[in-house]
C-alpha cells in the first residue's frame, strides 16, 4: 500500500506508543518469550515505517500537520534527512536492545512480564516524536515523555541502591531542564504568538535581539544542553549511565544524548538564525568553546575511570562535546559529517555497553582491575571490544572515523585548531577503551593491586543483573554487539548513509594518527600503571554525586550563558 509520505511522521510516533500499551496488556497473558517477541515485532514495524520515511525524505523534508489542520492551528511535523535519520537510528537501536535483552533480566513477576519492553517502546515513542516534531511545545511534551520512560528504566533494578540514586539525579536535573525550556517557550509564545519553529523564525524576521529573545534563547537551550550533557549541565550523565541496566545504557548513550545536540541545532537553525537574532558567528564562537570544553573534560575523566560503565559514560560526554563542536561549525559538510559520526558512535557505544553487560553477567563486576585477565574465555566479545575501541579512536574504515574525518575537513577551513581537539579526544577515549579491553580480555600488563583509591567508584562488586549467572551467556548478548560493530564497519565502507565526501587522504591520515595515539597511550598505561593512575583531583571531586551541587552548577551554567550572550549579541 503506498501511503503518501505526509502520513508517515504521525504514524511513526503513534506505532511505538500504541505498541507500549498493547504490549503491556498482552504481557499479562503471553509467556515471557511471547511478549518479548511481540515487542520486538512492534519495534521492527516502527523501524520499517521510519526507514520508508527516511528514504522518502531524501534531501528535502516531509512536512505535515497532524489531523489535517492548517499550519497556524495544528502541530507541524518536520521530517528532514537529519531528523528522520536520528529517529531511524533510535528505532534500529531499540530493535537491537530488545533483541539484546531477550533473556537479560531474571524472570519478572507474572503481571509485570510486558513492563520492560513496554517502557522501552514508550521511550522510543518519545525519542521518535522529539526527532520529528517541528512544534516547540510538542518538542517539550516528547522531551518529558522521553524523560519519564528513562527515569523508570534507569531505576528498574530496585534491589540495588545505586541505580535508584542515579535515576533520581537523572530525573531532577532533566526535569529542571525541561521546565526551563517551557519557560522559554512561554516567552517566545508571548512575543510571536506562534508555536511552530519555522513560523516563529519567520515571525522574528526584522526583530532586534533584545532581553526577551536572549533570555528565551538561553531558557530554550537549557533543556537541550542538559539532555546533550554539555558542561556544566553534564553531571547527571555519568551517574545515570554507570548504574542503569545495560540495555538502558545502550539507548541512553546511543541516541538519547544525541537528541539533545539535535535539539540545540534545530532551535538555533530554525528559530533564531533565519532572523539573525543570534547570528551564526556568535553561535559558532560560544558553542565551539562549549563543545571543546565538554569534549576535553569528558576525555580526561574517561581516561581515569576503572568502572567500565562510567568510563563509557564519560566517553559519551566527550563525544557529545565533539558533536556540539561539529554543530557549532555551522557548515553543511560539518553537519552531515557529524550526523554520520553520531550514527557510527551510537552503534559502537551500544556495542561496548552490551559487551560490558556480558562481563557484568558473567563475573558480577565491572571493575577493570578486578577483572584483569578474567575475560580470556570470551574471545568474540574481546575482539568486538577491541574493534569498538579502535572505532571510537576514529580508525578508518569505521563509520565513526569517516564522520570524524568529514567534520575535521570542514573544521580545517576556518578553525584548524579544532582538528587537534578531535584527534586528542578520540585518542584519549579510544585509548581508555583499548586499555580496559586489553587488560580485561587479554590480561595485558601487570596484575594491579586491588586497593581502590578512596573517593572513586570502582564497581568492583556490582550485583549481576542476572541472578543465575551459572547458565551460559544467551547468544544474543554477544551477537547483538558484534552485529552493531559490523554495521558501523559497513556504514564506513559504503557511506550511503550521509552525503559525506568519501575517505579523503587527509581524513585517513588523521584517523590513523588518532588510532596510533590511542594504542600508544593504552600500552603506556598498561606498562606503567602507577604513572597514569594518578587521579586529577579537582574535576573528580566536582562529580560529587549530590543533586544539590548539580542544580547549582546548572543554574551557574545558565547565568554564564546569559551573560556571554548578552555581551556578544
Amino acid at each position: 500500500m503506498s501511503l503518501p509520505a505526509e502520513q508517515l511522521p504521525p504514524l511513526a510516533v503513534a506505532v511505538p506508543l500504541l505498541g507500549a500499551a498493547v504490549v503491556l496488556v498482552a504481557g499479562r497473558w503471553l509467556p515471557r518469550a511471547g511478549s518479548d517477541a511481540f515487542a520486538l515485532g512492534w519495534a521492527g514495524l516502527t523501524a520499517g515505517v521510519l526507514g520508508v520515511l527516511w528514504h522518502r525524505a531524501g534531501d528535502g523534508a516531509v512536512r505535515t500537520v497532524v489531523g489535517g489542520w492548517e499550519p497556524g492551528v495544528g502541530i507541524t511535523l518536520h521530517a528532514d534527512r537529519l531528523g528522520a535519520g536520528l529517529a531511524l537510528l533510535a528505532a534500529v537501536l531499540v530493535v537491537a536492545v530488545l533483541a539484546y535483552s531477550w533473556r537479560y533480566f531474571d524472570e519478572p513477576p507474572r503481571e509485570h512480564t510486558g513492563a520492560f519492553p513496554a517502557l522501552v517502546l514508550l521511550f522510543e515513542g518519545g525519542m521518535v516524536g522529539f526527532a520529528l516534531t517541528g512544534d516547540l511545545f510538542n518538542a517539550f511534551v516528547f522531551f518529558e515523555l522521553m524523560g519519564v520512560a528513562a527515569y523508570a528504566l534507569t531505576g528498574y533494578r530496585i534491589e540495588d541502591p545505586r541505580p535508584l540514586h542515579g535515576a533520581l539525579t537523572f530525573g531532577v536535573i532533566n526535569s529542571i531542564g525541561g521546565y526551563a525550556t517551557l519557560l522559554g517557550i512561554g516567552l517566545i509564545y508571548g512575543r510571536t504568538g506562534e508555536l511552530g519553529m519555522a513560523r516563529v523564525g519567520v515571525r522574528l524576521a526584522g526583530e532586534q535581539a533584545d532581553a526577551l529573545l536572549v533570555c528565551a534563547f538561553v531558557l530554550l537551550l537549557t533543556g537541550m544542553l542538559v539532555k546533550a550533557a554539555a558542561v556544566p549541565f553534564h553531571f547527571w550523565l555519568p551517574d545515570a549511565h554507570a548504574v542503569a541496566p545495560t540495555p538502558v545504557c545502550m539507548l541512553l548513550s546511543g541516541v538519547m544524548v544525541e537528541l539533545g545536540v539535535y535539539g540545540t541545532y534545530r532551535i538555533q537553525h530554525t528559530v533564531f538564525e533565519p532572523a539573525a537574532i543570534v547570528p551564526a558567528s556568535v553561535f559558532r564562537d560560544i558553542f565551539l568553546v562549549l563543545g571543546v570544553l565538554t569534549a576535553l573534560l569528558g576525555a580526561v575523566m574517561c581516561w581515569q575511570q576503572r568502572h567500565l560503565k562510567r568510563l563509557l559514560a564519560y566517553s559519551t560526554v566527550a563525544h557529545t562535546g565533539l558533536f556540539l563542536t561539529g554543530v557549532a561549525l555551522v557548515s553543511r559538510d560539518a553537519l552531515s559529517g557529524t550526523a554520520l559520526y553520531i550514527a557510527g558512535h551510537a552503534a559502537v557505544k551500544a556495542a561496548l555497553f552490551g559487551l560490558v553487560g556480558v562481563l557484568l553477567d558473567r563475573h558480577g563486576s565491572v571493575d577493570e582491575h578486578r577483572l584483569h585477565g578474567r575475560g580470556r574465555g570470551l574471545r568474540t566479545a574481546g575482539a568486538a571490544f577491541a574493534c569498538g575501541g579502535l572505532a571510537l579512536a576514529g580508525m578508518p574504515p569505521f563509520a565513526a572515523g569517516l564522520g570524524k574525518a568529514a567534520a575535521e575537513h570542514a573544521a580545517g577551513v576556518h578553525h584548524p585548531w579544532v582538528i587537534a581537539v578531535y584527534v586528542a579526544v578520540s585518542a584519549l577515549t579510544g585509548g581508555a577503551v583499548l586499555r580496559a579491553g586489553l587488560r580485561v580480555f587479554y590480561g595485558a600488563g601487570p596484575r594491579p593491586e586491588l586497593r581502590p583509591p578512596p573517593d572513586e567508584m570502582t564497581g568492583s562488586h556490582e550485583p549481576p543483573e542476572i541472578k543465575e549467572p551459572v547458565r551460559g551467556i544467551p547468544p544474543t548478548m554477544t551477537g547483538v554487539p558484534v552485529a552493531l560493530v559490523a554495521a558501523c564497519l559497513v556504514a564506513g565502507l559504503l557511506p550511503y548513509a550521509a552525503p559525506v565526501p568519501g575517505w579523503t587522504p587527509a581524513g585517513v591520515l588523521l584517523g590513523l594518527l588518532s588510532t596510533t595515539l590511542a594504542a600508544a597511550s593504552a600500552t603506556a598505561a598498561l606498562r606503567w600503571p602507577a604513572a597514569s593512575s594518578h587521579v586529577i583531583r579537582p574535576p573528580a571531586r566536582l562529580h560529587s554525586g549530590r543533586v544539590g551541587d548539580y542544580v547549582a552548577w546548572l543554574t551557574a551554567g545558565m547565568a554564564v550563558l546569559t551573560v556571554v550572550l548578552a555581551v556578544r549579541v
Partner: protein
Amino acid sequence: MSRRVRTWVFLAAAAVLGVAFAAACTGLPDFGGERHPYGDRAAAAALRQQIANAVASVTFDQRGFDTLGEELMLFGAVLGTIVLLRRAPDERRVRPPRVRVLPSTRAYGTVLLPVVLLTAAYLVAHGHLTPGGGFQAGVIAASGVHLAYLAADYRVLERIRPTAALDVTHAAGAAAYAALGFAGFAAAAGTYLRNAAPHGTLRELASGGLVPAFNTAVFAAVGAGVVVLLAHFLDQALEIESAEERSG
C-alpha cells in the same frame, strides 16, 4: 562543594538570571493585552468544529498530538510506578489491621461515593460543552474511590478496587486514544488524529465529532491509572515490609 559554597554559587547565578528574566518580562506585551493571534485562530476553529469548550477543541482536536503524548506520559508514570514500587523479592505483604469506624462516617462515605462518581460522569459527558473533561473527571473519580479508605478501612478499599482489571483498563484507555487516531483515516482527506465524525450543532450533547470519544478514552486511562498509582503508594505505606522485620 560544601553546602555553603553551593548555596552561594546558586544565589549568585539566580540573581543574574532574575535580572535577565525581569528584563525579558518588560519585552513581553503588557499583561491583559489584546494581541492573541493563535488564541483567536484556535477559538474560531473550535466554533467551526461546533465544539463549545474551545479548550477541549484545542486539547483533543487541533493539538491532539500533544494530548497523545500527554496520555502516554501518564501511562508511563503509572507503568513506572508499577515497576518501581513492585514488591522486591526480599519483602513480604502484611494484611493491614481492621479499623473500627464510626457508623456515621461509614454512612457518609457510602452516600458520598456515588455522588462523586456521578459528578465525574457528568464532567466526562459534557467535557466538550462546559469546563471539565476526561482528565479532570478521571482524577476526581480516582480520588473519590479512596473515600472508601477514609470512611472505612484499607480492606474495604481493596475489595472495591480490582487492581488487575484497573491495570488493563488504564493500558486499554491509553491504547484506545492512540487507536482512535486511526479513525481519522475514515474521513475524506483522511489523516491520523483527524476529527472525522460528523460535528453536530454547537452546544448540543452530540456535537464535536470524536472529541467525546477522546474524552471517554482519557477518562478510562486517567481514572484507572490514578487508582493504580495510589494503590501502589498505599501498599508501600501500609502493607509491604522487608522480610526480616517483625510485623505489628
